């Protein structure tokens, strides 16, 4: 009797745990977001499939080169199933994706999944490294600017920020290569060492590309955060309360205003992440980094449809996950959102 009672209580507490887990606002939000992402991802793959199809040339002629005879191209096309109708090919690919198979590259015998598995870590590292550099520079800089609005630091940072936002990444990339790689030989111009091979070597090759990626973001985030901080300091009543307590301006900025301003900054970062992922394509090409963007450009010029589709899918998922992470972070930063979610 006592045994059955204890078993019952265990199962009850187990189900209570499951209920709490299912009732967790963060989890429910994640579930909703991921479900609603499915049609978006499907639309993105369909669009890129159609666009790739609209481009002149196909994988057979691209891979065989300009010296291939029409007969060779035709037989290669049949081998790659390129002679089949558009919808059959897309349906075939989609069916594969739904069963977890991204297909095989047309240009090489490698599977798309293994190509992405190899290339994705490089791009991920690039994005994370760039974001770290961005934060390390722009948060303290924005605080300094907001401490003395229209002061020397603020004005010079305004000029530099505008310049950094205006310049195109490929121009900036080449400029930094000339400066840091050719002129001073601090960083290599191209090449890649994996994180597994050597951490120092990896940082040596990844720093310059990450800086190129980070510079426009630094300009943008610094201005945004600075504007939001100044706004908080000038018009928020809680700042007046803190001043009336005798708290110093520095402490009000860093302890009170900064956290409130981060909520606004988060929105911008969320909107910005897709652009950042797009920029990695150019930066990887400039620095010959074997990332997913580099592979994407290759695949497009080869008309390697399965690889392009696979990478587009990965980019789409990355954007969805980044936005989800942003939304979850709102709850961490803003207790009001946390509690509203918990109640709904």
């Amino acid at each position, binding site marked *: 009797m006592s045994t059955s009672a204890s078993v019952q209580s265990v199962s009850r507490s187990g189900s209570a745990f499951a209920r709490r887990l299912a009732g967790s606002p963060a989890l429910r939000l994640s579930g909703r977001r991921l479900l609603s992402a499915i049609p978006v991802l499907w639309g993105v793959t369909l669009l890129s499939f159609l666009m790739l199809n609209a481009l002149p040339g196909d994988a057979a002629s691209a891979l065989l080169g300009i010296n291939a005879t029409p007969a060779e191209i035709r037989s290669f096309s049949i081998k790659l199933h390129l002679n089949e109708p558009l919808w059959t090919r897309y349906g075939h690919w989609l069916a594969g994706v739904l069963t977890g198979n991204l297909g095989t590259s047309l240009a090489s015998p490698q599977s798309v999944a293994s190509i992405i598995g190899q290339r994705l870590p490089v791009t991920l590292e690039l994005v994370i490294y760039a974001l770290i550099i961005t934060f390390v520079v722009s948060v303290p800089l924005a605080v300094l600017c907001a401490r003395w609005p229209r002061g020397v630091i603020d004005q010079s940072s305004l000029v530099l920020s505008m310049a950094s936002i205006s310049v195109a990444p490929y121009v900036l990339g080449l400029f930094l290569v000339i400066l840091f790689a050719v002129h001073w030989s601090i960083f290599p111009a191209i090449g890649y060492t994996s994180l597994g091979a050597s951490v120092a070597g990896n940082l040596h090759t990844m720093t310059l590309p990450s800086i190129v990626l980070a510079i426009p973001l630094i300009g943008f985030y610094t201005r945004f955060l600075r504007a939001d901080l100044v706004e908080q300091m000038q018009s928020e009543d809680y700042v007046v309360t803190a001043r009336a*307590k005798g708290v110093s301006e520095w402490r009000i900025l860093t302890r009170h205003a900064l956290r409130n301003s981060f909520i606004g900054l988060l929105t911008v970062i969320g909107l910005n992440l897709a652009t950042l992922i797009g920029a990695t394509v150019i930066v990887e090409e400039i620095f010959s980094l074997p990332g997913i963007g580099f592979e994407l450009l290759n695949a497009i010029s080869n008309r390697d449809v399965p690889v392009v589709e696979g990478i587009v899918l990965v980019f789409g998922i990355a954007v969805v996950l980044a936005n989800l992470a942003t939304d979850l972070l709102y709850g961490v930063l803003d207790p009001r959102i946390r509690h509203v979610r918990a109640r709904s």
Partner: protein
Amino acid sequence: MASATAAGDAAPPDVRLGPSPLLEVSDLRVTFHSRAGNVYAVQGISFSIEPGQTLAIIGESGSGKTVSAQAMMAILPRTAHVTGSIRFNGEEMVGRSERELRDYRGRCVAMVFQNPERSLNPTMRVGSQIAEAITTHLPLDRKQAHERAIELLRMVRIPAPERRFYEYPHQLSGGMRQRVVIAIALACGPAVLIADEATTALDVTTQAQIMDLLLDLQEETGTALLMISHDLGLAASYAEDVIVMYAGKVVERAPTKELFAGVRMPYTQALLDAIPRIDTQPHVLLPVIGGRPPDLSVIPAGCPFAPRCPEVQQDCRDQAPPLKQHEPERWWACWHPYRKGAGQ
């Protein structure tokens, strides 16, 4: 009459009441400079507060009462230009360095603000906001500040203070939040507590609770209370002395009982008439003060209330009446005051 200068009450009379003023304001002027022109928000006011006294400053919006309070707290924005003198325990506070003023704010003079919805930091636990007020001025460690904060929460009659310590402002009702703001203000035992429209944003029941709490705490701690309000009725129920401000000037000052026994200044009478009474007939329009509030960017030659005054005569338009002591403990600035008992 002819001896008064054209600019108004240039030589303020000594309005000291008791033997040793705690806070003494004399000929305080606050001007906001901007490209659009100057705004003369406070045009030479003088008064003093004794330890433990309850003084009310009454006036409509734009009368300069809040700006005066902010000047006393030294929390005016940088665009404000302050002249005159504010002495705390005999020490001049106008023109002090920011560092010295930080020491003064919260410790000598503290303030309760109008809008409890906005005067607390939404991203910070209320306990931490109280503890911050404590550690800013007192050499206490985290644990001691925590204990003192809970003590303060208990002092402002917040139930379950140990739990409330960890809550965020949005989890508290408006009245509770205002209690937290009061706890912050009392954290370092200030000698003067300024309540700037502290109950305006609250409903009537909560309003009475907060006012009673303020008076109880005043009795417990012996702090002087300076109530800033537009509500003459509130002053009648709670303050010992009343100062009426209009257009940046003091126009009447009297002990509360005497003021309500017989108003001298027509503006004060107009304020009184605008208070709804329980015995007013229903569906009868409340009397309002005709005309527009004064434009503070120009200093008129005559009495600032002249354009709206029912008793106006030619000399009012020509020359501003100075604030003078006409009876024991009674001051007014008017050429044609109501007689004792008249005008009611």
